[in-house]
């Protein structure tokens, strides 16, 4: 495989992985925030429910970022064992 082709393959692999990750993230957040915020499904999403979902999404992003840092630190200080 020539180097140009190699580069294209690498980019494609990374794009596919990023896509799969984003899809999984979305699915998880939707499930969690629906459970937390829409306790009694009504005829439409109330503004309270919409606000809750927005916050929930943002907090989940925050939590993921935070935990990412914690895990990185744990791995680099040899606390691994996953």
């Amino acid at each position, binding site marked *: 495989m020539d180097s140009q082709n190699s580069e294209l393959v690498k980019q494609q692999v990374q794009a596919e*992985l990023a896509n799969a990750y984003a899809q999984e993230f979305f699915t998880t957040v939707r499930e969690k925030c629906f459970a*937390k915020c829409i306790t009694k499904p009504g005829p439409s999403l109330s503004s309270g429910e919409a606000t809750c979902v927005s916050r929930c999404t943002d*907090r*989940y992003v925050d*939590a993921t970022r935070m935990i990412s840092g914690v*895990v990185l630190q744990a791995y680099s200080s040899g606390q691994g064992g996953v």
Partner: protein
Amino acid sequence: MAPQQSIDPQMAAFLEEEKRKAMFNEVVAKLADVCFDKCVSKPGASLDRYESACLSQCALRYLETGQLIMSRISGGSMN
């Protein structure tokens, strides 16, 4: 018998790195899944310090729990 094919070493290194990153992401995703439920009951405008501390501790305890279990089932001090 099919001839042995070897992957270009540069490509192999690339795939190893991507695999490592994917595994890291999987661990983080699992921890976030479990710990968000334990630590964030009512999502607010930001993560307060209790939630932050809880998430951090939860992640570490979860990893430690895994280590403990691993050493147990792989023949650590079994009483």
